[in-house]
């Protein structure tokens, strides 16, 4: 079928047989929940649809329904996601494998409905697995895989599947929609060990003393660490059944023998692959490393890559004020333990929906080739901003 990223999300949730969907409209997410409302209304999906009055309530309703043993799903974007922030922490603290789609969009002010990763990055400490997707197909597949990985007994944490606003959410691509029976064989019904039910008098989320709290956090940390292996094994099984894979935690594209590698997340990776191909055709040894899982972060994979290259150009589609781009900070931290460290430079680009053109990416890689030999004047550079001397297009 040919469909948008948003419909791919809706089909992903439907194929995963989400049982309770609580959602609130927000641009550019809305067509996900519209489609799901249709599926529920037509009977194609046997689920309860709760048209909540806010995103905060959407996540709170999902938390409650999932605690009662139902597989839940919601979708949101930017301000909706940040409104959920408190309950996102609730979901991970309660060890609930909820899966959501976030259509990553800029935060106001000034108002912007276009792509930017600030909303998603701002949730990095909530205890959620975070997957940045590159294509509509990956969105659909990742939702199904995320349920399976997250519902593993050793993981039991929620996951956020991230599509870039408009670039994926509203762009139609050919998407293979797998057969329901195949998905059912891959993803069995949600059967948690513990759920809230009558006859079992217990409190879910009770008060704990300081001599107990850390153990709960420690176990959640273990869950996130175990997710690394689980993401890979689930994807392996997925590939075996459906014939597709999307790169685990870190997708590497033409990185072998590369001098300089662009590190990026989201839809820009597909543009970057073309740029890498074009530059390689001219004999320039460049590659792309796509951060697919931002949480858990692929430190090991990046270290293995970093030990072999001269430079890593880290592209961030958001900025952490007073520091640098969040991806950059993580990548740089990964390199610290290496004996032979590559040069690492941060390029801030594409905020609020600004296009990142092939020419811009080529210039970033060209700059990085120079930086990896001579060092950088600035460790963090804002790309394509009015008033700055350097031309990026």
């Amino acid at each position, binding site marked *: 079928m040919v469909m948008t990223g948003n419909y791919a999300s809706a089909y992903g949730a439907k194929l995963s047989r989400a*049982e*309770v969907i*609580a959602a609130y409209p927000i641009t550019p997410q809305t067509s996900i929940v519209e489609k799901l409302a249709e599926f529920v209304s037509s009977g194609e999906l*046997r*689920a*309860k649809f*709760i*048209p*909540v*009055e*806010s995103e*905060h*309530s*959407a996540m*709170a*309703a*999902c*938390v*409650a*329904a*999932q*605690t*009662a*043993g*139902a597989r*839940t799903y919601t979708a949101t974007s930017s301000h909706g996601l940040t409104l959920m922030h*408190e*309950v996102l922490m*609730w979901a991970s603290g309660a060890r609930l494998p909820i899966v959501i789609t976030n259509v990553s969009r800029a935060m106001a002010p000034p108002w912007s409905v276009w792509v930017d990763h600030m909303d998603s990055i701002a949730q990095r400490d909530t205890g959620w697995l975070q997957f940045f997707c590159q294509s509509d197909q990956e969105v659909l597949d990742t939702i199904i895989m995320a349920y399976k990985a997250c519902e593993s007994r050793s993981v039991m944490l929620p996951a956020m599947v991230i599509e870039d606003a408009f670039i994926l959410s509203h762009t139609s691509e050919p998407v293979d929609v797998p057969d329901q029976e195949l998905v059912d064989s891959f993803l069995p019904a949600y059967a948690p060990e513990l759920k*809230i*039910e*009558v*006859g*079992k*008098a*217990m*409190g*879910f*989320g*009770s*008060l*704990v*003393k300081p001599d*107990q709290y850390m153990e709960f956090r420690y176990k959640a940390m273990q869950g996130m660490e175990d997710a690394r292996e689980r993401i890979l094994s689930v994807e392996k099984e997925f590939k075996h059944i459906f014939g597709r894979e999307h790169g685990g935690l870190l997708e590497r594209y033409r990185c072998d023998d590369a001098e300089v590698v662009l590190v990026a997340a989201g839809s820009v990776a597909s543009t970057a692959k073309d740029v890498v191909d074009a530059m390689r055709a001219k004999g320039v040894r460049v590659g792309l490393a796509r951060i697919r899982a931002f949480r858990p972060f692929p430190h090991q994979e990046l270290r293995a890559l970093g030990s072999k290259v001269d430079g890593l150009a880290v592209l961030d589609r958001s900025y952490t004020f007073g520091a640098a781009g969040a991806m950059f900070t993580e990548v740089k931290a990964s390199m610290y333990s290496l004996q032979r460290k590559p040069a690492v430079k941060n390029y801030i680009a594409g905020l609020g929906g600004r296009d990142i053109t092939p020419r811009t990416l080529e210039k970033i890689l060209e700059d990085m080739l120079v930086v990896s030999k001579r060092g950088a004047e600035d460790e963090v550079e804002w790309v394509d901003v009015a008033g700055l001397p350097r031309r990026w297009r």
Partner: protein
Amino acid sequence: MTKTTIPYEEFAYPGSTGCPGCGANLVMRYLLKALGERTILSIPACCWAVMPGYWPSHCLKVPLLYTAFEATGAAISGLRAALDVKGVEDVTVVGFAGDGGTVDIGLQAMSGAAERRTDVIYVMYDNEAYMNTGIQRSGSTPWGAWTTTTPVGTNHGFKHESKKDIMSIMQAHGIPYAATVSVAHPEDFVKKAAKAKSIKGFRFIHAMSPCPPGWRMNPMHTVEVARLAVDTHMFPLYEIEHGKVRITRKGKGLPVSEYLKAQGRFSHLTAPEVSAIQKAVDESWKLLLAKEASGT
């Protein structure tokens, strides 16, 4: 001897960490007696978020989902949806929140759940301030009351805004059942809670819940003060069934000063201020009688 209409069975066990004389302990006790064991509770931040005891202790005989302060209406919506989709029947889903968690921070989620006709009971135990955090004013604190954020001083002093009329707000949602209950009238309380259980749709119970530390009174007077609230018409007992108002206890019509003087939080009030409260209470009572007479 007259047979008691209150069930003997207890669903709230000893072990609650509530303060001595806590009205909310009685609210929970009577509520669960009426609703029985096939009940699932959701409680947001409030005194009762602490009162069941530290994990893994749990002083209630029913399961309980803790939720965020403003999220009770959403949590009970999610619980109901999950039970429905799983085909679990005959379970009463109950949101149990304080006044701040209901009329202030939780109003939006509750309004949403009511508008969606969610099949749940929402109980607001009203101790008329943020008591769990140490007596700060809420939208449900009455005019004239001292709290830590409405301190009595030479400048301004005490709360100068009236209590939010949550019953009217809920009536305006067109819900099938809303009732006020008091721990001083357990039979009326249990009867209303049982009636709420028998009705489908969004049901609301407003429970007066005296708080000895917050109201600056002796813990031994909890029930007495709750009774005075009814007898002075400060807190009339009534129900609204499918829009029809019915007063269930008329009270003795005592002067409000009887109620006010029993609590330190009103001790600063001057005679004209007490008269102003009396006037407001008389008007509300008249309005309620008129509502009952007209059937709306």
